[in-house]
Structures are given as C-alpha cells and as structure tokens.
C-alpha cells in the first residue's frame, strides 16, 4: 500500500473531479437546478404552504386556481399546491433510491460477470436477458401487484426492472478495461482480484454508470407515476403525482386543472433528470456530443 507500489492508472482524483465540475454544460446545469429546487420544495413543503396535503374540506370542493388556493382544490377540497409539494417527496425518494439500488446491484453483478468471464458470466447475463425480455412497465406492475404497494416494494420493483441495464454497461466497461496495461501491472504486482476490480477498474467505468443512473432516474420517476396512475402506487390519501393525475382524470370533464398540474410536475422532474443525463454524457464522452 505504499505510494511507490501504486500502478499508473490511479490518477489525481481530486483534480479530475474539479475539472468535471467546470466542464458541466448548460443542459446539466438546468437539470440540476430543477432537481435541487424540487428537492428543496419537498423538504420545506410545510413552510411553502399553510395547507395539509390530506385534510379534506367539503366547503371548498373543486375550487378553481387562485382565491386562497394557489392551484385550486380537488374533489375532496384538498389543496393541490400542498399535495404537489408533499407529493414531490415520494416521486423523488422512489425515483432516486430505486436507481441507487439498481446501480449498486447491477454494476456489482455486471463487474463480476465481466471480470470472471466463463460460466459465471453466461449464467448472470442470461438471467439479466430474461428480465430484459419483458416490458419494464408490465414487469413493475406485476411485481407491485403481487408484493403489495408499499414504498419499499415499489423501490424494489423498479430497481428490479432497471438492474439489467446497469449490469450490461458495467460488464462491457470491465471487459474493455480488464486487459489494459494498468490492470496487467496490478496483476504483476500481485494485487488480489477484488482489489484490482474495485480499486482500479471501477473508477474507469463509473462515469458511464453515472450517466446511465441519471437517465434511468428519469425512467424510474415515469414508472412510479405510471404505477400510481394505474392504481398500484402508494395508497391514498398519500399525495403521489401519478395518483393525483388519476383523480384529476376522473374529473376531467369538469375541472381539467386537476390533472394538468401534477402532469406538469411529473414532466418537469423527468425532463430534469434527462437533461442531467444528456449533459453528463456529453462531458463523459465528447465523441457523442451531438447525440443529444
């Protein structure tokens, strides 16, 4: 573990990180600003509205925007703005945590498969392909319906559908790095397999994994909203954006703003994650700059 024993590819990490920050482009910044703003709105929801997201008020059913209620009220007289703010908590938590779980599990499995090769590789990737051979939304839907729609279960179900994508990209990354000179140098120095894989190869594939995570968070938010819309999200009266769209849809002929407000919120968050992912991809792989 002395400095001299360090192989050539453990670069000055701190400098690289600063450089990455400076190279962030407009699209990443816009996305980051939106996500941070929504996170703050979710955390400070009680300060941003005087209303409770679940308190019903039969005197103010379906009131239009303005008039004491910024975005009006729904069919139970609940304040829409308050429900949007509190709903952000669930969309963000589920979207982010599902992908963090998928990223950790998928990257780990993919790295093992790519590093060991042989039978481990074949079996692991065959399992991943089986999961992939199924429309993600339907898979998530079936899983949630069978294991029950709690926060933890929804996170697990969405993570399950996203794991193969991470396994694939991590495997491909490890396979291109495995036989590079620095990896051979590590081997010549007698480093153990896990040390080479996790200390030396992993940093090289992480940027790509991060780009994927951001794009998949967009998908995860969309899937969570879709599940809630279908009726397989967190149970009412929990204010989920997808559930709000569903309730608005049931009243669409009389008050269309009920469905419109949460629809825009979902679109904004998904768009923000996509912007971050697109922007980061340009930074990580300038060759693809025009792909977005």
């Amino acid at each position, binding site marked *: 573990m002395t400095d001299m024993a360090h192989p050539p590819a453990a670069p000055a990490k701190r400098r690289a990180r600063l450089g990455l920050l400076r190279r962030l482009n407009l699209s990443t910044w816009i996305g980051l600003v939106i996500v941070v703003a929504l996170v703050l709105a979710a955390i400070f929801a009680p300060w941003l509205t005087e209303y409770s997201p679940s308190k019903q008020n039969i005197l103010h059913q379906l009131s239009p925007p303005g008039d004491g209620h910024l975005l009006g009220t729904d069919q139970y007289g609940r304040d829409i703005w308050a429900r949007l703010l509190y709903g952000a908590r669930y969309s963000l938590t589920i979207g982010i945590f599902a992908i963090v779980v998928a990223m950790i599990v998928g990257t780990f499995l993919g790295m093992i498969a790519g590093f060991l090769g042989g039978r481990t590789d074949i079996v692991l990737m*065959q*399992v991943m*392909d*089986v999961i992939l*051979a*199924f*429309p*993600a*939304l*339907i898979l998530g*839907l*079936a899983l949630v*319906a*069978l*294991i029950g729609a709690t926060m933890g279960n929804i996170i697990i179900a969405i993570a399950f559908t996203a794991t193969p994508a991470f396994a694939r990209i991590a495997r491909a990354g490890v396979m291109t790095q495995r036989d590079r000179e620095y990896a051979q140098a590590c081997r010549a120095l007698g480093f153990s397999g896990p040390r080479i894989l996790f200390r030396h190869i992993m940093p090289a594939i992480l940027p790509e994994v991060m780009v994927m995570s951001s794009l998949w968070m*967009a998908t995860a938010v*969309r899937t969570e*909203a*879709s599940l809630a*819309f*279908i009726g397989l999200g967190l149970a009412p009266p929990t204010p989920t954006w*997808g559930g709000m*769209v569903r309730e608005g*849809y049931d009243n*669409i*002929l009389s008050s*269309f703003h009920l*469905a*419109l407000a949460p*629809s825009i919120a*979902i*679109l904004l968050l*998904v*768009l923000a994650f*996509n*912007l971050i992912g*697109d922007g980061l991809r340009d930074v990580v792989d300038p060759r*693809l700059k*025009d*792909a*977005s």
Partner: protein
Amino acid sequence: MLTFILKRLGFALITLICVLTLVFLVVRILPGDPALVILGDQASPDSVAALRDRLGLNDPILVQYASFLGRALQGDLGNSMVTGRPVTSEILNVLPYTLELTFAALVLGTVLGVPAGVWAAVRRNRIPDYLMRLVSLIGLSLPAFVAAIILMMVFAIHFGWFPVISAGNAETLTERLRQMALPTLALALIMMAYITRVTRSAMLEVLSQDFVRTARAKGVSPSRVVWTHALGNCLIPITTVVGLYLGILIGNSVLTEIVFSRPGLGKLILTALTQRDYTLLQGMIVVYTLMVVVVNLATDLTYGLLDPRIQYK
C-alpha cells in the same frame, strides 16, 4: 440464414422457459390462496379444499410445474381461474386491439420521426435543430398517460374532434379510425421522440464521412445525398431503436388503454392482477415475452435486408 433463425429460436425457447419457471415460482411463493380468492372469504373449508383439488393446487409442486410447462409449450395456457374460459382465447380476443394500436403508433412515429431527425441534422445548430432537440427531449420525458390525457383534453374535450372513449365497438372504418387517432398519437409522439434523436445523431455521423463529400463533389443533388446516400446508412441504428422501443411501446399501451377506455392486453393484465387470476397472469406473461422475442428476431432479420453485407451465421 436458416441456421441463424433456428439458433435464435432456440435461444428464444430457453428465455421463454426461464420466464415460465420464474413466473411459476413467484406466483406460488407469494401469499394469497387462489381458491380462497375465487370463492370469497365466506366459503366453507370443504369447498375451498375441493376447489384446490380441482385446480391441481394440492399436487406436489414439481408435478404442477411439469404439467404447466408441458401444456404451455403446446399453446394450452389453461383455463382462467375466475371465468373458467380458456386463457388462450381470452388473450386472443383482445390481442388485435393492442397490436393494431402498437403498429399504428410505430408507423406514425417513424413517419414523423425520421424526417424530423434528418431535418435537424441538416440544419445542425440552427433554429430547426434546437426546436427538434427540445421537442424530442420533452417527448421522451412525457409519460404515456400524460400525453394521452393532454391530447384528450385538447382534441376530444375542448375541440370535440375525436371521441373520448375508444371502446373498439366502431362499425364503420371512419369511426374506427377516429377512435384510434388519439391513443395512437399519444404513443406515436413518444416513439417519434426516440426516433428523431437517433436519426439526428446517426445522420450527423454519416454526413461527415468521405463518401458524402465525394457524392457532393461529383454533383449529386443535395436532396439525393441526404435522403438516399446518407439516410440509407442510418437505417441500421434507426431499426435498432425501433425494435428496442417496440417492446416498451407494448408495455406502455396499458396506459393509453386505461385513459381511452380501450380493450387490450393492458386492461386484461390489470384484471388478472386484481382478481389474482394466476392462470391468466401466467398466460399473459408468456404472450408478452413471446412478443418481445419475436420483435427482437424481426429486428435482427431486418438488418440483413437493409445491409447486404451482414451475414447471418
């Protein structure tokens, strides 16, 4: 070519068996006695036991598995636990609705998306390009149900041009097309977003290649260079994205089916899930997997049509 197809079909069969096994296990590990679900809470223990026997739920799990797998591979997916009708016919009843919707969305998305992508690439870093990039980014951030609801608000409720419900009971062709228009458009917009992006990036790469410069230098008309020489070389990545997205489209059709009250696979799987109709659920999962497998095979075979250099081995 034939060996290639056979080999791929072999892989498809393995995938299918893996999926069937997984489904079989998951469905049986999870709580909830199907016999109790069918008969309701008030049923006597005797009748529950009798039904369990009739459904084969008392057999050893390996026997259940073997008979399930054997019959599934022959196309017999059993009878619905709730309605008692054959699962295969229940699925075949609604399958055309989902297929017609998916196919129409695919065609419309391609017809709109490819020219949009080409236009953006040719006018790179100018207003059309920025416009197309923005529109496609929004398109792929739009959940299918949000797109469907917005289209419904504007074109069905506000303008009243199309029916709100697309129940699939149309008698004339015009009525049928009017019913299909909005659900198709909702899915096609998202499809278009993906196709525009991949077309644009593929075109940009091809347009910078030497053969394009040569074609221009020898005086081939600009539109011919773009639409024949360059676009022809973009068809492979476009096909990849179409194939990849078709699977997602089949899944997303459940959302449009709900919004427009349309019959289809999505509606059926929801019924199966809420009623815990295990046999129907198993059957539907087989059908979904089959569709994805077929789409993947078709994508691979299309490559060969598009690029004669590709050899199947």
